């Protein structure tokens, strides 16, 4: 009995040590690469990098904003740090992550989606595991602790046992770590300026009646974003990218808002109700630049 328990414990400890060590190596490899937006943000730029305009948000801002066009138009350095399958809390985290590296940006554009106008759900977004290589950072631990459900919280617990988060998201992290080891500069679905060209599938659905929403944007996360931007000397713009059917009216908002929810509504520019195809992206970016220039001149 004693021999059984002792040997079992020895094997268990040995296995856990190896597993945690491998997970640690895997996360470290990722953190030293450009693979995800979160690691690219840290690894790709020089310390204290200054940007002219940066974009933070979800897949909608990836599909609507081209920072190459913006950079050319404003004659400055513009990067899109938006990440698909994320919500506003992840956008705030990405912004914190950005400032934590000592970077600055004169203009910060936060793209806002319908589900986050009033409030945001306290759940982890599908791609939040991409922050795992930086789990030792306080702001990331706080985020995982708050948003992860259940009592195990594999992402949050990874600060002690990296294998927990790594095992839970193994298919999302292991192949990238392997690739990052061979090609540390490889960027997964984005280019040098953080842009991604979605495949041009046109919207197939019959266009329904437009839905109308009126909001003052009371989401408290927006206040936190605003506070953070202000603290770091950035001017914040809340951007609502075009929707195929949704008409959003922003009233009495305390934020600087570029609302393009109904700016473009031809189905040929959309791949579905919320995402634009590349031709739509070009028009949406040009419209953004036009309005941005007006805003900029008023400062």
């Amino acid at each position, binding site marked *: 009995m004693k021999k059984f328990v002792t040997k079992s414990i020895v094997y268990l400890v040995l296995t856990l040590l190896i597993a945690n060590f491998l*997970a640690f190596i895997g996360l470290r490899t990722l953190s030293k690469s450009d693979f995800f937006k979160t690691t690219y943000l840290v690894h790709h730029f020089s310390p204290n990098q200054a940007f002219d305009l940066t974009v933070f948000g979800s897949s909608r801002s990836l599909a609507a904003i081209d920072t190459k066009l913006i950079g050319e138009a404003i004659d400055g350095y513009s990067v899109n740090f938006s990440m698909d399958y994320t919500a506003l809390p992840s956008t705030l985290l990405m912004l914190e992550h950005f400032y934590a590296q000592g970077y600055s940006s004169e203009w910060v554009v936060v793209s806002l989606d319908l589900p986050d106008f009033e409030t945001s759900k306290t759940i982890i977004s599908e791609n939040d595991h991409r922050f795992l290589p930086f789990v030792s950072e306080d702001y990331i631990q706080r985020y995982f602790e708050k948003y992860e459900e259940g009592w*195990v919280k594999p992402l949050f617990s990874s600060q002690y046992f990296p294998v927990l988060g790594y095992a839970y998201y193994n298919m999302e992290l292991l192949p990238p770590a392997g690739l990052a080891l061979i090609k540390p500069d490889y960027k997964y679905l984005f280019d040098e300026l953080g842009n991604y060209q979605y495949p041009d599938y046109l919207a197939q659905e019959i266009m329904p009646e437009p839905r109308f929403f009126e909001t003052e944007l009371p989401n408290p996360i927006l206040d936190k974003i605003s506070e953070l931007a202000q603290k770091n000397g950035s001017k914040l713009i809340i951007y609502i990218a075009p929707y195929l059917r949704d008409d959003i009216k922003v009233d009495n908002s305390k934020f600087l808002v570029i609302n393009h929810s109904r700016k473009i509504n031809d189905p040929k520019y959309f791949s579905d109700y919320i995402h634009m195809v590349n031709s739509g992206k070009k028009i949406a970016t040009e419209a953004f630049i036009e309005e941005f220039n007006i805003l900029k001149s008023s400062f």
Partner: protein
Amino acid sequence: MLFNSIEFAIFLPIVFILYWALRKHFRFQLYILLVASYIFYGWWDWRFLSLIIFSSGIDFLIGKRLGTLTVESKRKMLLGLSLLTNLGLLGFFKYYNFFSESLSEAFTFFGKEISTGRLNIILPVGISFYTFQTLSYTIDVYRRKLEPTNDWLAFFGFVSFFPQLVAGPIERASHLLGQFQKPRVFEYLFAVSGLRLIIWGLFKKIVIADNAAFMVDEIFLDYTNQSSLSLILGVVLFAFQIYGDFSGYSDIAIGLSRIFGFDLMLNFRFPYLAQNINDFWKRWHISLSSWFRDYVYIPLGGSRVSTWISFRNVLIVFLVSGFWHGANWTFIIWGLIHGILYIPFFFMKPHQDLHEHSILKNLPKIFLTFTVVCLGWIFFRADSVSQAFNYIGLIFSNEGSSNFIFEANKRKIILTIVMLCIMGMMIIEGYFESKQKKEVLLPSWSLVLIVLFIFYFGGFKNHESFIYFQF
């Protein structure tokens, strides 16, 4: 509580330590096991504990009474009461809606509309398993093959033994009950073999079954748009999903029992190495097929009757076995397919020992058997009989153009991992089969690798409950 959950990883060491700390007081050990088993089951839904306690109580009392009665008619009545109670509960919870809907559909077919109310019934996990286990006790006592027990603690422990409570193996009282009635001694090698089986079972469940599950689910959900290749992959993956899931559970159950000093019966013996359907049923869910053999097939006359009656008996057993799996015509058709495929081999006298030739030489037979088993799995997995027929039709017509797996890099990676693991598992099973072993017992060093493999390739995010819990 699931074997592959954090809760269980905490529960198990606590029970293990308490249990063996009381090794000199075997009655206390039984209390520990009983309480642990009820916690294990109640974790899912404590309300259904009353069903297990009720079933155990009824059969314990009936068993005792059967032991004292000599009048056959009274004994028969008591057996009838046990069957009525146990099968009545099973019938109500598992089959009520099926019968009421089938009745309504039958009336509609003949032009009459009747309204049979559908009840919102939750199926208690494992009810089919523990019902059959406790029934085997009463039937054996009735047949005077087993002495009734006066030890309620041992009997209740036998019915609710947590390692095999919810998905088997379906144990016989003649094999397991006695082990509850005598002190157990910790045997190092026996416990180590248990631990090895647990890890092997976890590998099959978490790496193979759980990774295959999400691809299978999506393919079956959107089967009308899938290409032939995708549909074939869907069914092959399901074959290994259900095998990894169910045999994985059995391995864990047997392994857990061993570390508590109990020996459970073998439930799977490398079924995908079977050379024909007859051979397959000697290797797949052995505890259920032998249960049906002993308590349905033999009482019906077995093979001691005319050829046609034997033929009928085999079909009945397969149909009942299909129906045991679930209240859906798909399971009945699945049973029927196996019954029809089984009959020719059943009446053929074996001319050769199936194990005398190497696996490589018999690969065509193994492949053919696997193919027909897969055909059956389509019915087993489909939501309806018409869906199963459509699925088969689409495999041959190749009308769909979607390839769920090949449309995303992540899925291709998971498919590659699952396929490599399936190949690895089959090679390992083939090796142990060629050594005339009945289970996979890997050396300790390789277990470290397998655990690492589970961590890095397991489907934790696609974490699925064990399929057989629903039966």
